[in-house]
């Protein structure tokens, strides 16, 4: 990163086939819309392949937090493969285990439980964003 970035990049896995993917996307949107609207930027993950080469500058331009729904870690691995190192990484399935969540989750009809988990994940993302800001890795406004 040549110039000090102004935003933190938060990249969610696409995870359409998994309930955790839906929770990840919703959590990232919550952070963007509600909790840290001015400091977060994102990217649709498939643009690493389908976009022009500009998208591959993502991790060079911003410190990136990857948010993955399962152990395949597509967001983290795709960023590392196509763009650069990630600053921090979240694996929701590992977090769910840590939080003791064993209920079956819905990918298509998120209800009260999935919404609560999206909020909890959003709080975790915010914590990691704030740590990056405290480390002085982005220019504060």
């Amino acid at each position, binding site marked *: 990163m040549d110039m000090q970035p102004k935003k933190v990049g938060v990249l969610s896995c*696409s995870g*359409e086939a*998994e309930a955790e993917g839906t929770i990840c996307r919703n959590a990232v*949107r919550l952070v963007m819309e509600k909790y840290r609207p001015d400091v977060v930027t994102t990217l*649709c993950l498939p643009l*690493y*392949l*389908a976009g022009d080469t500009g998208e591959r500058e993502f991790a060079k331009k911003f410190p990136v937090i990857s948010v993955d729904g399962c152990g*395949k870690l597509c*967001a983290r691995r795709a960023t590392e493969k196509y763009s650069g190192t990630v600053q921090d990484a979240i694996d929701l399935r590992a977090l769910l285990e840590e939080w003791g969540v064993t209920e079956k989750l819905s990918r298509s009809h998120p209800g009260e439980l999935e919404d609560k988990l999206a909020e909890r994940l959003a709080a975790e993302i915010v914590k990691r964003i704030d740590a990056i800001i405290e480390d002085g890795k982005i220019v504060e406004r």
Partner: protein
Amino acid sequence: MAKKVYVIPCSGIGKAAASVGREAMYRVVEELRPEVADTLCLSLLVMGDEEALEKIRKNYCISVDGCGKDCARKNIELSGGRLASSRRVHDVLKKHRDLQPEGVRDIGENGRKLAGLLADELAAEVDAATGGGE
């Protein structure tokens, strides 16, 4: 004839149209054609996941994109998938301009109606690819 049809939406996180595409896909694979339609995470194609590649190469795929960047279609093509058809949410929206979706996390009533219309079209395309129908 293909054994399964993979309905693969884009992962669009910035536009409500992408959420409409995902909602339409879920209706097809879970409610309208659960026996023959399925989905997979588009990011697996980005990563070159062997199991995912085998599925899209041995079966037909339908891409559903939420914007003109056509990530779903392009990733399927780049991965050597058998594309039966490709759809954009905006093509349906053009025919039903009163059904503007509200937001990314909640597409609202209009968005759900739009997703329903798109799902019906996708189900017909699944039938065409499999030679079947309800």
